[in-house]
């Protein structure tokens, strides 16, 4: 290497646009720059240009840029997409409205079903049928399309989704409709379901295509302006866009099918967790991201994140929500964050979340008029957060408001103010433990084999308590936890996840048939990458088969190695039996069938490599700021040593009770914990000695 390589990640959030720049010098040393500026709706690209300027980054020197944005999820939840028309198979225009008929809030006789994103008068049908085996049963009749499109135009439709029955098995009819629309109405935005997913279930696929169409013009406009703005400042190559599957994808591909960005926010953090795990030799990670309003968790096994396609937005015990069938990192999200409000119900029971005080009024301690106690207030009251260094000193903690809010709660619970604060922390912890159990114990994983990696504003405050409950061996808090998501983006490959439904018995000849499906999908992936200028030798694949016992529905994903032939089918079946038994406690003496494939296609696009620093002496006394009384709830009140996080250096070690503070986060170290700082400045907390 002869010149400095500059990699930049920008992340557009609701309030701030963040920048992290990583400059790797020819000698391998790394310089990290961070900057923050206001998010600038509706012209978000201005915020990105501003933050680059603020961080002193000259776009013309940037070798690799990754960009994360919430534009898709915001357009969906705020209903700020465009008017969509849907074209579907004759007899099925109501699929989108019928949905699946479920009523999660089942005692409620006034349950309201989620409104479809396309009203009935904009859902049109065309004759023609495929079978589930992909054969044509009745030819496509597209003769009504001109009339349908005229009608759509009249009604102000700006984007069209096409989803035909069994389009996953044979997309020929969808392709023909697509081509016809492009011919008849070249300027309209249009997407067909097979371009997004090749899996069965017509409602889920239709809804996915519709939501993608709904956000497409919005996302394309956003990405187009961003690209033009950056290029005009000299950025040599378009930025890569963070996806929900933990990879980045090209700006061009993302503009066409933007729905794959829907959960890109959490994905970069979880990918960062997987990559960090590899770096520090901890391949099994429970990753926890606690923000202001929610906590999200995901399990990483053997260094691999789990990618699934059963994802919903707005789904809860009160609502069926909307399915989106795109590859999304397997995560559980709950409404528990620093701003979660604690309240006592009519029957004297304490609840924390999902309501959040948000940024305004925020926790009572913000002194902006918040009267309800939040998790942050409880943490302040208990001395876990430094009341004299609140938000890194940016806000003066209004402790009298916190006291009033907690006293009010305590009187309803008939306990002391201290006990009310402890109660909030314990309930919040319990909610998070239950979420962590869902991704671990509930899927047959023993948490004792895992390391808990905590990031986000609140992760490190609760991590040790959660780790004790789950009996994990160790907690790791990454260096600069506040820019961890951006770091994750820097570690991402160009990644595409292909899922295809392909029902098959594991009988003679199946090996070759399965291999053919993989080969075909790999060829498609390779062609797409190469068309984008990715060299062939940079591309690699991971293969998974989705298997089940004959007659079952849900599948278990089994990693597959090398070429599939009949010879290895027995081993494949045995791998399935073993994985199945691990998750569900039993195995059956029943035939195994394959339902489909999952292919991960990856290409390295110049991600960051990290170099370890020299480790110094263990003595950490130089980083001590002070001591103070900290309430550890069930473990009592202790005099804790307070460390300055910025002053901790590789090799240092010390014992709890302690608190590590820096401007972005607070790490709560419990009594008996042992802390050490690794060569990458990550904080390792061993629970017991």
């Amino acid at each position: 290497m002869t010149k400095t390589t500059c990699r930049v990640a920008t992340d557009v959030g609701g309030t701030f646009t963040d920048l992290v720049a990583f400059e790797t010098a020819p000698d391998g040393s790394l310089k990290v720059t961070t900057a923050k500026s206001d998010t600038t709706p509706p012209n978000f690209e201005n915020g990105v240009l501003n933050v680059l300027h603020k961080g002193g980054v000259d776009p013309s020197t940037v070798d690799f840029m990754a960009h994360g944005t919430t534009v898709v999820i915001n357009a969906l939840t705020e209903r700020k997409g465009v008017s969509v028309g849907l074209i579907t198979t004759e007899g099925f225009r109501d699929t989108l409205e019928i949905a699946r008929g479920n009523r999660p809030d089942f005692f409620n006789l006034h349950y309201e079903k989620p409104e479809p994103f396309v009203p009935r008068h904009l859902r049109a049908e065309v004759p023609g049928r495929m079978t589930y085996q992909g054969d044509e049963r009745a030819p496509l009749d597209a003769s009504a399309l001109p009339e349908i499109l005229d009608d759509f135009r009249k009604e102000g439709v700006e984007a069209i989704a096409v989803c035909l029955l069994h389009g996953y098995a044979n997309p020929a009819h969808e392709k023909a409709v697509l081509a016809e629309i492009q011919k008849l109405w070249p300027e309209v935005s249009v997407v067909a379901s097979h371009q997004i997913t090749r899996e069965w279930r017509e409602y889920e696929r239709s809804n996915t295509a519709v939501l993608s169409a709904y956000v497409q013009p919005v996302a394309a406009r956003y990405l187009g302006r961003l690209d033009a703005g950056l290029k005009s400042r000299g950025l040599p190559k378009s930025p890569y866009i963070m996806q929900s599957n933990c990879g980045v994808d090209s700006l061009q591909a993302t503009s066409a099918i933007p729905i794959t960005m829907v959960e890109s926010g959490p994905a970069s953090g979880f990918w960062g967790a997987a990559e960090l795990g590899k770096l520090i030799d901890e391949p099994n990670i429970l990753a926890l991201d606690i923000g202001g309003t929610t906590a999200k968790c995901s399990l990483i096994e053997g260094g691999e994140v789990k990618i699934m396609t059963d994802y919903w937005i707005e789904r809860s015990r009160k609502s069926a929500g909307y399915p989106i069938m795109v590859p999304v990192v397997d995560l559980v999200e709950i409404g528990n964050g620093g701003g979660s409000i604690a309240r006592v119900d009519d029957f004297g029971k304490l609840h924390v979340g999902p309501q959040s005080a948000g940024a305004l009024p925020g926790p009572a301690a913000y002194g902006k008029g918040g009267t309800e106690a939040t998790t942050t207030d409880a943490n302040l009251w208990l001395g876990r957060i430094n009341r004299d260094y609140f938000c890194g000193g940016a806000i003066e903690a209004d402790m009298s408001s916190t006291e009033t809010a907690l006293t009010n709660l305590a009187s309803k619970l008939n306990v002391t103010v201290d006990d009310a604060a402890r109660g909030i922390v314990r309930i919040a912890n319990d909610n998070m433990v239950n979420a962590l159990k869902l991704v671990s114990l509930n899927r047959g994983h023993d948490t004792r084999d895992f390391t808990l990696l905590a990031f986000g504003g609140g992760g490190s405050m609760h991590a040790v308590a959660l780790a004790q409950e789950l009996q994990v061996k160790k907690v790791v808090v990454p260096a600069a936890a506040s820019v961890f998501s951006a770091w994750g983006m820097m570690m991402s490959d160009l990644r595409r996840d292909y899922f295809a439904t392909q029902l098959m018995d594991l009988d003679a000849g199946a090996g070759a048939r399965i291999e053919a499906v993989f080969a075909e999908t790999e060829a498609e992936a390779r062609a797409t990458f190469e068309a984008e200028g990715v060299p062939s030798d940079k591309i690699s694949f991971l293969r998974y088969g989705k298997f089940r016992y004959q007659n079952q529905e849900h599948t278990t994903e089994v990693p597959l190695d090398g070429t599939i032939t009949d010879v290895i089918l027995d081993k494949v079946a045995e791998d399935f039996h073993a994985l199945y038994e691990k998750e569900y406690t039993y195995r059956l003496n029943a035939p195994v069938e394959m339902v489909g494939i999952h292919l991960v296609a990856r290409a390295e696009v110049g991600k960051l490599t990290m170099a370890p620093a020299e480790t110094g002496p263990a003595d950490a006394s130089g980083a001590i700021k002070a001591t103070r009384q900290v309430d550890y709830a069930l473990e009592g009140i202790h005099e804790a040593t307070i460390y300055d996080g910025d002053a901790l250096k590789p090799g240092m070690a010390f014992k709890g009770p302690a608190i590590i503070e820096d401007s972005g986060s607070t790490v709560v170290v419990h009594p008996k914990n042992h802390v050490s700082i690794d060569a990458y400045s990550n904080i390792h907390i061993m629970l017991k000695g």
Partner: protein
Amino acid sequence: MTHDPITLEIIQNSLSAAADEMFAAMGKTAMSSIIYEVLDMGSGITDADGRIASSGAGIPAFIGVLDKSVQFILQKHDDIRPGDVFITNDPWHGGVTHLNDIVLAMPVFSDGTLIAWTAIIAHNSDIGGMAPGSLSGDATEIFQEGLRLPAVKIINQGVTDDAVMDVISCNSRMPDFLYGDIWAAIAGVRVGARRLEGIAEKYGTETFQEAMSRFMEFGEKSACAELAKLPKGTFELDEEQDDGQIFNVKVTISENEFIVDFRDNPDQTAGPGNATRDGTVICAQMLFKALTGPDTPANDGSFRPLKVLTREGSIFHAKEPAAVGFYYETEIRSNDLIWRCLAPHIPELLPAGHFSSICGTFIGGIHPDTGRQYTIIEPQIGGWGAGHNHDGVSCNFCNFHGETYNTPAEISEARNGLYVDKMALNDAPGGEGEFTGGRGLILEYRIRAEQGFLTMGYTRFKEKPWALHGGVEGSGNYVEVIKPEGTTKYSFVSGLDVTTDDVIRVVSSCGAGFGDPKKRDKAAVAADIKAELITPERAAEIYD
């Protein structure tokens, strides 16, 4: 000993989480589509005495079943040990519903003391009997409806009783499915038991038990608080049924009791439409819960103010060995009877009548591509009634079902080897009002092989979903079978032969309307016309 309220709260949260985990484990591993796709199942946790403490997602009609099963097992067995699993399906042996619904229950021990039970109920595809799928409209005794499992041990201290397993498998037309589904349920109760053992170990047996008991007290308190808001008095309703029988209910609401009296009803029938007393109690529980806090957890305490009176030997309290296969259509009538009886007095709590039928549909035959037997067992979705300030929703499952899913056409075509020609909203007239009822379903199955069969039994065919305050009643549930020689309409049919290219057209009712149609907002009428949910002619006739 006093107990820290936060600890009790944490244990109570864990009970709900454990019940949800059980539900998920069963749903993911089941073999019958009625379980894994439709999720016709329920999971629950009871205390040591069999009182329901927590229930998972699933269907409300199954929540009140599991406690009754556990209570029967406790009564029958005195050798309950760690690692045991019990099985029952017989309504006179703790099974409550019909023989297809198999309950698996597992005792949970801590420090050698029985502290709780985990239990799962699910609809199994075939448990023997005179007809495929075990349900026949021709059954006159329960013996014709399949194998009766009278609350016996299937796993003894961790060791499976292969003899019992063999007897069960051997009695089913679909032994692989039944075997797989029973194991899926066992996995579910074990997951729950493991979780509860962990909680009890951590917090101590006594605290665990205290948390359960306080949770039920909380259920009772919240039910009583809502009960206090209901109008007091005695309300009565007679209602004619599709077959001409008259059903009756008297509901008496007082400060601390909610009494449902079903004693004045016809004798049990010779056919399979009988309900058991336990089943009738559950129907009353579901409506009581909807009135007294659908948002709070459902447990034993939630139902304490409720009293249900029945007469042994009546259709709502049948004596052994009555046939009960189609019990659910009778049960949903009793539930709807209470609903209709009270709705005019509390319209803000109770909307107008919905399609109110399970619409249980059974289609079977040989899959033309695989040569294997297929059986469709599915409830249908339909229209819900309008409320005092909103239109009813279209195509949702009835109030007996909850977190239940319909079967996608793409999956049905692959699995069952038939075609789904159409799945659409039912635009039949009916359900108009100031607020309109939701739309029912039209679902067309085209048969692809010879020697298939159709069995179905729907109510609310002649006696339509009932309207409120001047709205229009719903359109009615039925099936049409379209054959070359003609089309026939059915509300009940058993083992009807269907063959290649016959079309089975399932039609579920629109929900009923609320309020005078003339008062409907004109913009809403215009939107209905634009959506082609009503013709301009019908709209002019009804709304102008």
